[in-house]
C-alpha cells in the first residue's frame, strides 16, 4: 500500500510537468490552430531563465588568500558572491531561493519571447498546412537549442533548491500511516502543488475574465468574434505569450529536479505531444487529465512487481497507452469532433 501511494505521488509530480507543457501546447493549438513543435524549447528556455537569474545574482568577486595554496602552488582564490557582499545575510537568502525567485524574471522574459515568436514567425504560417507548421516550428526549436548551447555550453547546469525545501516530508504521518512509512521529497511536492496552481490559474483566467471569455469565444468561432469587431488576433498573440509563460514556469521549477541542458526541450516535446494526442487535440481539460494519467502510469510501470511480469514496460508504457487510446477513442480522451480532421 505504501509503495503504491509513493508511486502515485511520483506520478503526480511527473504528471504535473507533462500537464503544464501539454496545456501550453493545447492553448496554442486551440487558439491559433498551430501545431507548435517549438513548445518544448520554451520549457527549456524557462529553465535557462533560472540558470541566468542564478548566474546574475551569484556574480562574484575573487580575492586571493595568500595563507592557503593549491596543490599546484598558486594562492587559493576565495570567491564571494556580490549579492552577499552587498546585502549580507539577505544576499545569501536571495541566492538560496534563486529558483523560485527566478519566476519573476521568467514571466516577462517568456511573455516577450512568446509574443516575438508568434508575431515574427508563426503568424506567417497560419494558413499553411500543418505539415509546414510542424517543420518550421521544429526548425525553430533546433535554432533555439543551438543558441542556448552556444551560450551556456552542452552540459547540464545544476540548480540548487532552497535549503528549507530539501529533504523529504513524512507524507505517511499526515494520512495516518506509521511515521517514516511514506516519505517523499519536499520539492517534488512543491512542484506538484505549483503545477496544480498554475493550471487552476489558467483555467480561472479563461473562465472568469472577459479576456478569457473572448478567447474562448474565438476558439469556438473565430470568424463570428472577428465580425463583432473584436481584434481576436491580438488576443491570440497574448495567448501564445501566455502559453510560453506556462511552459517557461514549468521549466523554471523543474531545474532542481533535473539540471537543465540545451536539449531538455526535445526530451519533453515528444512526451507532451503524446499527452496532447491522448487528451484530445485542442482540449484543455484533456491535456491536463492525460498529463497526470500518463505520469501516473509511467510511475506505476516502473514498479518492480510490474517490471518482473513485463520487462521494459516502463520505457514504452506512454506510447503503448497512446496506441490503445487512439484505437479505442481516435479523438483522444476529451477530443472534439472536427479537430484536425479536415
Amino acid at each position, binding site marked *: 500500500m505504501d509503495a503504491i501511494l509513493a508511486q502515485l505521488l511520483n506520478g503526480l509530480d511527473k504528471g504535473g510537468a507533462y500537464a503544464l507543457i501539454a496545456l501550453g501546447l493545447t492553448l496554442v493549438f486551440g487558439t491559433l490552430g498551430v501545431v507548435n513543435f517549438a513548445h518544448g524549447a520554451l520549457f527549456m528556455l524557462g529553465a535557462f531563465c533560472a540558470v541566468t537569474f542564478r548566474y546574475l545574482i551569484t556574480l562574484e568577486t575573487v580575492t586571493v588568500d595568500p595563507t592557503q595554496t593549491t596543490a599546484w602552488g598558486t594562492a587559493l582564490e576565495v570567491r564571494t558572491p556580490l549579492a552577499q557582499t552587498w546585502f549580507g545575510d539577505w544576499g545569501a537568502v536571495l541566492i538560496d531561493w534563486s529558483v523560485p525567485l527566478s519566476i519573476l524574471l521568467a514571466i516577462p522574459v517568456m511573455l516577450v519571447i512568446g509574443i516575438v515568436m508568434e508575431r515574427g514567425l508563426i503568424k506567417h504560417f497560419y494558413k499553411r498546412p500543418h505539415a509546414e507548421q510542424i517543420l518550421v516550428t521544429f526548425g525553430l526549436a533546433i535554432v533555439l537549442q543551438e543558441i542556448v548551447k552556444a551560450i551556456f555550453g552542452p552540459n547540464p547546469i545544476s540548480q540548487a533548491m532552497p535549503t528549507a525545501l530539501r529533504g523529504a516530508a513524512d507524507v505517511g504521518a499526515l494520512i495516518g500511516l506509521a511515521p517514516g512509512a511514506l516519505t517523499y521529497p519536499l520539492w517534488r511536492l512543491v512542484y506538484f502543488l505549483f503545477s496544480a496552481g498554475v493550471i487552476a490559474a489558467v483555467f480561472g483566467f479563461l473562465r472568469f475574465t472577459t479576456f478569457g471569455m473572448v478567447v474562448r469565444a474565438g476558439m469556438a468561432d473565430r470568424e463570428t468574434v472577428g465580425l463583432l469587431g473584436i481584434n481576436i488576433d491580438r488576443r491570440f498573440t497574448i495567448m501564445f505569450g501566455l502559453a510560453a509563460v506556462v511552459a517557461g514556469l514549468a521549466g523554471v521549477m523543474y531545474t532542481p529536479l533535473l*539540471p537543465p541542458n540545451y536539449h531538455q526541450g526535445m526530451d519533453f516535446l515528444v512526451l507532451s505531444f503524446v499527452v496532447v494526442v491522448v487528451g484530445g487535440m485542442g482540449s484543455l481539460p484533456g491535456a491536463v487529465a492525460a498529463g497526470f494519467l500518463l505520469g501516473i502510469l509511467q510511475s506505476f510501470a516502473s514498479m518492480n512487481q510490474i517490471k518482473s511480469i513485463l520487462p521494459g514496460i516502463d520505457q514504452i508504457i506512454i506510447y503503448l497507452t497512446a496506441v490503445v487510446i487512439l484505437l479505442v477513442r481516435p479523438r483522444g480522451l476529451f477530443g472534439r469532433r472536427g479537430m484536425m480532421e479536415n
Partner: protein
Amino acid sequence: MTNSGNFSRRGVLKGGLAGILATGVSPLIFTRGAYAQEFCNAPTGDTVTIGFNMPLTGAYADEGADEQRAYELAVEHLNGGGDGGLIPFFSSKTLKGNGILGKKVVGVTGDDQTKADAARDSARRMIERDGAVMITGGSSSAVAIAVQGLCQEKGVIFMAALTHSNDTTGKDKKRYGFRHFFNAYQSGIALGPVLGDAYGKDRVAYHLTADYTWGWTQEESMKNATEALGWKTLAPVRTPVGAGDFSQYLTPVLNSGADVLILNHYGFDMVNSLTQAVQFGMKDKQANGKQFEIVVPLVSDLMAKGAGDAMKGIYGTSNWDWQLPDDASKAFTKSFGAKFGQPPSQAAHTSYVQALLYADACERAGTFYPPEVIKSLEGFEFDGMGNGPTSYRATDHQCFKEVYVVKGKEAPANPFDLLEVVATASKESVTYDPAIFGGELGPDTAVAC
C-alpha cells in the same frame, strides 16, 4: 649445346633473390622499410597524428572535457613543452620530449557524444580522413568496446581511457585494444572488505544499474563481492543511460526492505541519481533497524563536484586520485593544475598515461608498426605513473596496479578537496585469472587502409 646455356647471370640473380624473399630469410633491412606500406596511416612526414575521441556532449561529458585537457597536456609534454609532467618519473626512460620517434605529435579531436555509434563514426573519420595512427579516449564501456572493434578491423591501436566494464578486457577484448583503467571486478574486490567493516555483514542491497555492459558487469561484481560478505541482494533494477529523472526508480527503493542502495551509475547519471536519492531522504532513513546507506562503486572528483553535499560519506572506488601522496601524482597534479586551474580527474590521469604509454611503446619498438608496438606493450612492467608498480598483462591487455577505495569528504578543506582515499587494494589482491571473463584477443595482422 650444353645445359649451362640455359642459366644466364641475370636469371640466376633473379631466381636467387626471389628464393631468399620467399623463404623469409631476407635481412631485416629489407622488411623494416616495408612497414610503411603495410599498415594503416604510417606516419610519413615529420609529424605523427593521434586521434582523441571523447565525449564532449552526453551523460559523461564532464569526463570527456577533462580527457581533452589531459591530451593537450600530454601532447605538450611529448613534444618537449611544459615541465614534462610524468615523463621524468616514468620508469621507462625512452621519452625525450622530441615527439615520438622524432616526429612531432599532433592531435585531432572528435566528440563521441557518449554514444557507441557516434564514437565509431568519429573514430572512423579520424582514421580515414585525418590519418590517425592511434585512437585514444572515451568514457563509456559501450563506446570503448565499439571503438575497439573498429580499431581491430582497421589495424589501428586503441588506448582506451575511462572504461570500467569487465567486458572491455574480458569477453570483448581485442589485440589492438589496451586498457590502463581498472575494472568493475577490481572495484568489487577492493570495496567489499571496506563495506563489510563499515556497514556489517547483515545487509540487504538494492541495485540501480545503468542498462549497458558496464552497469551489468559492475552490478555482477558488486553482487559477488557483497554476497561474499553475507549481504543479500534484491532483484536489480536497470535504468536507461541518460534517464535524467530517476525518481520513478528510486520510489520503489523506499519500501523494498533494502537497507543499502548501490548506484551502478556514472557521470551525470550518477550525479542525478545520487542527489535525487538524497532528496528522497535515503541518507537519513532507517531500515531494518539500521542506518540506510548509499554506495557508488565507481566515483570520480568530477561526479563528487556535481553531486555536492550528497556525496559526503559515500564510499566508492577510483583508479587514481589527485591527492595521492607519491611524487609522480603530485607532479602530474601540479602540471595539470598550473595549466588548467583545477586538479586532474581520474579520467584525465588515465588518458594522459595512455598517451605516454603508447609513445613509449613506439620508442621501445623503434617503429609505429602496430604489431611491434603491441608486442612492446604486452607484458610491459612500469612504475612512476601514480599507481605504483603496474603491468600490462599480455593475455588480456588489462593493466594491473593498486586500486583506491575513496569516500566523499565530510569537511572539505577547499573546493577541490572532495574525496579521500580510505584504503588501498594491492596489485596482487586485484589480480585475477583472465579465463574467468573469456574472450579472444584476435590476430595482430597489420591492415593497410
